């Protein structure tokens, strides 16, 4: 399964699910990464981590370790 951490700058995807059951998963879901949400990968910080994405028209940054919990379906 592709995760948000595997995407490249410029690619777009739809959230399938967020794995895990702790507060980090809850926070990712609350911030709009709920199943069905569309996102695009905007860029990364200097050392390639964290990453910046666009969800529902706003900018969000997450660490790669957190992004790996977000399973996505890439959109062409």
């Amino acid at each position, binding site marked *: 399964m592709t995760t948000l951490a595997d995407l490249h700058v410029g690619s777009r995807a739809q959230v399938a*699910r*967020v794995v*895990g*059951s*702790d*507060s*980090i*998963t*809850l*926070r*990712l*879901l*609350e*911030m*709009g990464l*709920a*199943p*069905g*949400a569309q996102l695009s990968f*905007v*860029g*990364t*910080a*200097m*050392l*390639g*981590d*964290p990453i*910046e994405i666009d*969800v*529902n*028209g*706003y*900018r*969000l*940054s*997450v*660490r790669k370790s*957190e992004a790996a919990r977000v399973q996505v379906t890439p959109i062409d």
Partner: protein
Amino acid sequence: MPKTLPAGRPIRIALCGNPNTGKSTLFGALSGVRQRVGNYPGVTVEKKLGSAKMNGRDYTIIDLPGTYSLAPQSMDEMVSVDVLLGRQEDVGQPDAIVCIVDASNLQRNLYLVCQVLELHRPTVVALNMMDVASSKGIDINVALLAERIGVTVVPIQANARKGLDDLKQAIVQSLQTPVAPFRSPFSEAFCAEVQQIHDISSQESATPLPHYLIQRLILDTGYLHEAKLPGVSASVISAVDSARQRLAATSDELVSIEPIARYSWINQVTQDVICRPDEHRATFSDRIDHVVTHRIMGTGIFALLMLIIFQAVFGFAPFFSDLIESGIGEMGGWVGGLLPPGALRSLMLNGVVAGVGGVLVFLPQIAILFLFIAILEDCGYMSRAAYLMDKSMSAIGLNGKSFIPLLSSFACAVPGIMAARVIENRRDRFITILVAPLMSCSARIPVYVLLTSAFIPSFTIVPWILSSRSLVFFLMYFIGIVVAVLVAWLLKRTILKGETPPFVMELPSYKVPDWRIVLHRVWERCWAFVYRAGTLIFAVSILVWAAGYYPRSAQSDPGFATEIASLESQLESSDGDSNELELILERLQRDQSAAQIRRSYLGQAGQCIEPVVRPLGWDWRIGCAVVASFPAREVVVSTLGVIFNLGDEQDEGSAELRDALRRATWEGSERPLFTIPVALSVMVFFALCAQCVSTLAIIRREMNSWRWAVFSFVYMTGLAYVAAFLTTWIGNWFV
């Protein structure tokens, strides 16, 4: 039927909203300057209350901390839930709730609104930043939105003070009309479970747990289980546990029940309400962001900005501090002229004036740093800075937001610790605060300069680049950083354990900073320092003055008094060449004050701790200077001046003091007191110690507990002692 307004007390309005929605601006616009800032008991959440008048009635506005969700994960987040549910006794239950939302990011903002509606309280939604939304080409059907969510929605533009009258009108109206029923987005099965637990709670208590809290208990990710809230009985806990099991069997993950339910409600509610352009329009903000968060350009811009801030706090602030100091010196001179010599004059000069000065000299640094921070925060850059620095900071176990507080601490730990407020996570904030004083601040420079120039031989190590003295300077800064990293590592594994907080951070749209917010924040920080920390710093300065002044009696040292008196009368009678006499008199007076300090409580304390400092290679005089510098590190220079018979007007550049230190020997022997290892050990001690009452006072304020201030003092002094001991010990191997 219209409801009547509560009588006999101000009407309470709670203001809540996501971060970066203009909530502070709205709070400021509604309450003006009539604000009271305090702390909620037992937590580090700021309690902000404002007052306003609407339609002739008094209102109290409770500004809740910005949050994305009312699902509490910590004690600090629980405060907002408690306030809204009327469980926070010191503020009382709000009569109405105003929820401010960002129109340009409506969907995510409605998540919090959906939770608030679940509370069944009079609610008004303030739809802010309509201008930003329309610049993105987003169109919102406000009337349809209000109809769908069942509460009044008022478009406002908080920064331009637009729509405020409509909002006030809507608040008053909401208090007088019954709350429209709200259909919870949760499944029927879930609502039935909540109702069942509510029934259990009603049988047990006259004030049953609110439905919202029961939802939270079922959906808890760990915090509420630990928190043991009042009213949660054993039977409620077991009912919650079995409800969780039943729900987990029918749906996938408990954690996703709420977000899925609420986002599907949001999608229904916003259907045809939000009209977006088909093509994503690159806004001004996007174009700035393209450069500012670029992995190379962005990092360069960040480094440049930090350099400017550091230069301003480190380079410009001392100019203003010097002005304040000389102003206070003038005042001291004036006061001194009015009073006869004696205890009162000494108290005024060396206690009161020095104490006030000790507080005020920090103000320029605090004001300048917070001017920058408030601008960067309000324009939206701050979270970008955290984004850029996160990887490097997480290597030492902190997050990107710790960078600016730690950097500022190189100028002064006081504003640095205050800046740690931007870190929401309690554990990361506490660790940042606890290690911030280890960064070598500007108050250590006088100590470093004095001892380096007196005892470190000057030679070149790398031509043009590195000399022996700059290497020593660098090492002092380096020791602080290395120790801070180790301490942070250790704290995370011992007393401040906990899972790594998520770094899921919004990068808000850029905007022109609101100067009212910026100036207000600078004022708030300065006032908090003067008022909360200032009193303590002042008190300690007076205590240390008294310890150095008393006990004092004319009989204790009759020799000096008679000699000085006779010299003075000789001076008066001789009208011609009196230079020599004056010099003798001055020397006598210095000897007298040196003898006095030796006899004083401070001197006694120094002699008392001599066995403790002996292993460091120090005698009682160094020990005494260290004890006296408790109010502030730089005081050690003038105390050394007094102890080594030079009077208290010595500064680090004074050649006289340098020579006196070089000449100083162990009492009753010819052995020099200061060797290179001893000088280095004093410097290392000052690099790591917590001799700064302002820092301790601000730690106590920001962490809302004396225990942490004491902890900081103990651990830093302990480390400083061990490191100073090792320096002398290792140094003596080479000498």
